[in-house]
């Protein structure tokens, strides 16, 4: 059923239409709201579970293997249930709001971080027509959510009444807001080529075999798109606060930065979004540059043998995302951490000029080559 969904109509609208037909009424806003809720729940259920269980497990296992250790291996086969056990532990821990904390802000902060990290998933086109909400300004919405997350982190750092937390959240603001610039600018390169800001639309333009993907598009575009891809990847690392840009948490400097004072599930609500954000940024990178759900041979392109088969697209989408995700994990366990002024140097003096050059070059190429 899903395979025949019209690409333009969001999934929630389909559910609303189906509900209306079931009840026997015209689709009114109630049905649309229910449809949206169903989609949101579905995304959370489908995304939180693999992110929470898979992401954290992968990170720990991979870190273990890189460091010549075993990683988690006690709970369940190969330690697969370790994250679940950790979740249960976090849930059952005492929820401490210490004296001196600004309690309302302290409580609110994890929700904002959690929401903004997971809300990014609704615009991702998982398979042809598989975007839960096919926004016209998908990439714009996604970048805005990254900015929104910093608000939650500033609230956490400020309300914790801990100077290390404050310093961590200030680093976070400085870093993420700065890195939004190259991130946003370089994201415009695919937008210029595709002529749309919708992530589904951008994917559709890349239909076809590997040389149609934006990063290699027709050979000539690689001159622009490879640096653009690298800039986007590095900025994405910084926006997700991953090593070598993990300054806001900087274990050896700021202890744990903005979430030092959080315990139990409130800490868990900072911990999970980190992986969610990593995954969604990897997904957006794969959509913008690596052809999203298209396979390298063009079988899922229009006229290809697998065209419209939803699981075929999903497989490719997730494999590209996972490779990028894994590369982020391996990088963390390979590189030391930058210093705050070097982070700023890298952003404003390295990535931003390259991003600008990429943007201008893309515009010129677009003028002459398409």
């Amino acid at each position, binding site marked *: 059923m899903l395979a025949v969904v019209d690409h333009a109509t969001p999934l929630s609208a389909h559910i609303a239409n189906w509900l209306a037909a079931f009840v026997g009424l015209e689709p009114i806003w109630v049905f649309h709201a229910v449809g949206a809720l169903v989609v949101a729940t579905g995304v959370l259920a489908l995304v939180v579970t693999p992110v929470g269980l898979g992401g954290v497990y992968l990170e720990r296992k991979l870190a273990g293997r890189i460091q010549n250790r075993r990683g988690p291996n006690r709970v369940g086969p190969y330690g697969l249930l370790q994250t679940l056990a950790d979740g249960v532990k976090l849930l059952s821990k005492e929820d401490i709001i210490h004296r001196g904390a600004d309690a309302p802000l302290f409580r609110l902060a994890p929700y904002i971080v959690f929401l903004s990290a997971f809300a990014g998933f609704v615009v991702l086109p998982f398979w042809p027509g598989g975007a839960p909400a096919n926004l016209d300004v998908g990439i714009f919405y996604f970048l805005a959510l990254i900015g929104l997350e910093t608000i939650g982190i500033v609230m956490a750092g400020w309300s914790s009444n801990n100077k290390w937390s404050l310093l961590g959240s200030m680093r976070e603001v400085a870093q993420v807001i700065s890195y939004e610039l190259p991130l946003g600018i370089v994201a415009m390169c695919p937008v210029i080529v595709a002529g749309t800001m919708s992530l589904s639309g951008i994917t559709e333009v890349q239909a076809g075999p590997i040389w149609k993907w934006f990063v290699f598009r027709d050979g000539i575009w690689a001159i622009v798109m490879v640096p653009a891809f690298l800039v986007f990847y590095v900025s994405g690392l910084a926006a997700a606060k991953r090593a070598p840009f993990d300054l806001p948490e900087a274990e050896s400097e700021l202890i744990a930065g903005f979430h030092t004072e959080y315990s139990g599930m409130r800490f868990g609500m900072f911990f999970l979004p980190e992986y969610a954000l990593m995954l969604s940024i990897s997904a957006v990178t794969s959509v913008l540059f690596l052809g999203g759900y298209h396979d390298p041979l063009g079988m899922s392109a229009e006229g290809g043998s697998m065209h419209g088969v939803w699981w075929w697209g999903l497989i490719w989408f997730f494999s590209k995302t996972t490779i990028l995700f894994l590369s982020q994990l391996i990088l963390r366990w390979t590189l030391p*951490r930058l210093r705050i002024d070097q982070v700023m140097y890298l952003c404003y003096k390295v990535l931003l000029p390259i991003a600008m050059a990429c943007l201008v070059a893309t515009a010129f190429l677009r003028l002459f080559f398409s």
Partner: protein
Amino acid sequence: MSNTVSETPAAANPNPSQIQGVKLSGERAVPVIPRDIQTDELVFNMGPQHPSTHGVLRVVLRTDGEVVLEAQPLIGNLHRSCEKILENLTYVQGLPYVDRMDYLGALNMELGLVLSVEEAGGVEVPKRAQYLRVIMCELNRVISHLFASGQFGLDMGAFTPFLYMFREREEGLKLLNMVTGGRLLYHYIRYGGVTRDITPEWAKLCLAWCDRVLAHMPEYDNLLTWNNIFLNRSCGVAILDASTCMDFAVTGPCLRAAGVKRDLRKDMPYSSYEDFDFEVPVGPFEKGVVGDSWNRYRQRLMEIHESLKIIRQAIEGLPEGETQQKKISRAWKSPPGEAYVASEAPRGEISCYFVSDGGKFPYRCRMRGPSFQNIAVLELCSRGLLIGDLIALLGSIDITLGEVDR
């Protein structure tokens, strides 16, 4: 901006004199990084539970945002009055206690005490025992330097090389365990000798281990030493020049990284170090400025090479003979006298000013903890650094709090 910072409850205690135990010297530091915006100063309490203070060091930081204006190390959290304990125990009973000073280079601590006492008591040590001491102390030094280098990487955010170095360290600890019976606290060196001889099998294992450490060296270098981020973080950061080192009596790898060729193993050889052929590496090395964090880190890696050389020579040239001076019994006590002998421990020069009145107990054992002297530079050197650089400074000085506080 300054208003908002002072209003936060986090900065509600801006007066450093109100914090218990803190006396800031009151000199205004001049930060290196130019500041356009004058903001309120924050007083941070770093430690004693901070992961990068390598123990229970407490540093009170006065910062302007990320720029450290003043760092005041407050020590004593691990103080056990080792010297008082030594005065109240017989000679042989006191030895296991000195292990607890620098728990990462425990054999060198034992040697520091034993050399002084032997000098004052006029004890001859058999040649074989001297060689065994050298082998074990150098093994201990390599282990300690591996730990220190890995720890420095960990402070910089690189976790993986730390565990790679720990792997080799673990093998070394096993070797020490085979001979001494302890993994960390050895109680191996006694007055007039050592407790236990090595076997030929052990010697083979030890030589193989030396090869393995050397084989893994390129791994550390590629992963950490030559990494661009690591170089940027540590080159030219927190420079400790030769004159500052002399002024503060900073010794060991920190002094040598500052370009001063002082190594007691060469300069005042003890325990047959004059028999071995080894170099004393001094800074500056390939990158950075003389005496910066990177050079101190590099100095330790270079010293590992030299120590491995010494271990090889000592094992190959191990003379036959006794391992323990027979005249020294359990009830041995030093005749009246005094001595001051220094030796080269992994973190600097350990020395003991030993006074005996001929009684059952030592009259006075004044131990010099090299970390104690080395950490004193923190106050001067940390001015104008960023917080991340302060961590680099602390990590590259490489202190052990057991020895700072004694």
